[in-house]
């Protein structure tokens, strides 16, 4: 069974994404604080990471950049999911090595399709 680490601080979005992915057979771990998100990712060792941008204590960009410096996460699929959908945010995410960039709000089926594609 493949696993997703969802790094997101909005409880109701966490619950919705968890439901959507678990129904599809994914194991879902969640984490809400930016400060120790990298350590949490290293401990969980997920197949895919869904990463919010605006997190308490550390931004998604910084987490993404730090993850990409670790050998285990150099090629790991990371989906950045954010309400900040401006072109410059997308460019920054790409410069930091994001695999896919999606904006909120999202259609449940689109999110599921994206995670499935990244997990293949």
């Amino acid at each position, binding site marked *: 069974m493949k696993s997703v680490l969802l790094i997101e601080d*909005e409880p*109701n*979005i966490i*619950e*919705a*994404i968890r*439901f*959507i992915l678990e*129904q599809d057979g994914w194991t879902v771990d969640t984490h809400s604080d*930016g*400060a120790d998100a990298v350590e949490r990712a290293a401990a969980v060792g997920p197949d895919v990471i869904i990463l919010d941008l*605006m997190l*308490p*204590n*550390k*931004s998604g960009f910084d987490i993404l950049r730090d993850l990409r410096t670790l050998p285990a996460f150099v090629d790991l699929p990371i989906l950045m999911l954010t*309400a*900040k959908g401006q072109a410059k945010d997308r460019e920054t995410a790409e410069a930091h090595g994001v695999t896919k960039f999606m904006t*909120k*709000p*999202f*259609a*449940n089926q689109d*999110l599921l399709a994206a995670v499935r594609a990244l997990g293949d």
Partner: protein
Amino acid sequence: MAHSLVGPRIRERRRARGVSQVALAKDVGISASYLNLIEHNKRGIAGRTLIAIARELDMAPAELAEGADAGMIDTLTEAASAAPGAGAEMNRVSELIGRFPGWARVVGAIAQRAEAKDRQLSLLSDRLAHDPYLAEAMHLMLSSVTAVHSTAGILVENTEMNDQQRNRFTKNLYDESVRLTETAKDLVVYFDNPLESGVGGDETADLLHDFWAKRGFHAPDLETCNESAQHMLLDEMGDIAREDAEKSLARYQKIAAALPLTAFLEYAKRQHWDPLELAHATGASLRDVFFRLAHLPPDDGAPVFGLIECDASGGVLFRKELPGFPLPRQGGACPLWPLYRALGHPGQPVRAILRTPGDETFTAWAVASPDGPVDYALPPTCKSVMLFTTDAALTPSTAPAVEVGAQCRVCPRQTCASRRTAFLLK
């Protein structure tokens, strides 16, 4: 360009008076075919012929000959360029002005009004994009909308869900709708109460900010006493009150002259960009050094500095933001900023390490100083300036950081003793 309007004017006037081309040509002693060429701007006209035609058409020669305006031609040309697919007959713009001056003025006025609205819209859009309160409010609303959208989708798409799950998602949906409503109400209050919220603000300060931001807060032409450059910049500052525009440029020029760029950069590198050391080394005021550091060319390897200047009431007079350190347009910023601490001790420089809610570290320097004329009966007007940067090389390694925010409404530090208003996130 002026003469290009003469032909159409003659033709229009002649037709309005019901005079044939042949008759008018005969009256002024030229051939009808020559008059036809004149009316179509294919022949020039001056001297006796112009006077004779004007007399026959009961007009003053000057009225016939003077260029109604090159400005109108420019206006209509610009209007046409804004609608490239409309197929405006650009080769006949003079004819339009000459034959239908009233309609030409109407088109010109509409085009100018549309251009002014575009400028205003662009300005407002820029402000919305940089307002920290609105940015946070929009983020909250989008988060709530995301939760509502996704949760509603789950409820609709999963009809076999058990009651416990259904009830939980229904409650989530309700909670998010309440949060969305409250954020929307807060936004209405924010817009309804510009003084409290900071929306509205000082139009001049905003326009000056936009002018300098567009130039990266650096004006190479003002580094020397170049009067023509100053005039050109003043023309570009057309939306800003002349006196304020002149003051802004004069301040830049005065500081540029007192702290010439090349020498200042050398000093600054030698003093490791420390503003106080720079003030000592150059003999300039700390305030001028702050201003100079915030207006360096963007690509010379210098640290990037932001700056905010306020009056004694905290009203923002000038601002230069940095990423991660949003500044309010008017007032009401975090009371823990050294900008405000400096106001309590004019002349005493303050340095502090600031940590933002986004966990970014900034070094900030501030100083307040009297500004303007002094009087026995009144205390001096005081202004405070704060310079700040993220450059780690300028951060003292031993100093503890002060945890600050941008404005209380967007600051998540719930237990802060200086909190003035509630955090937007409910």
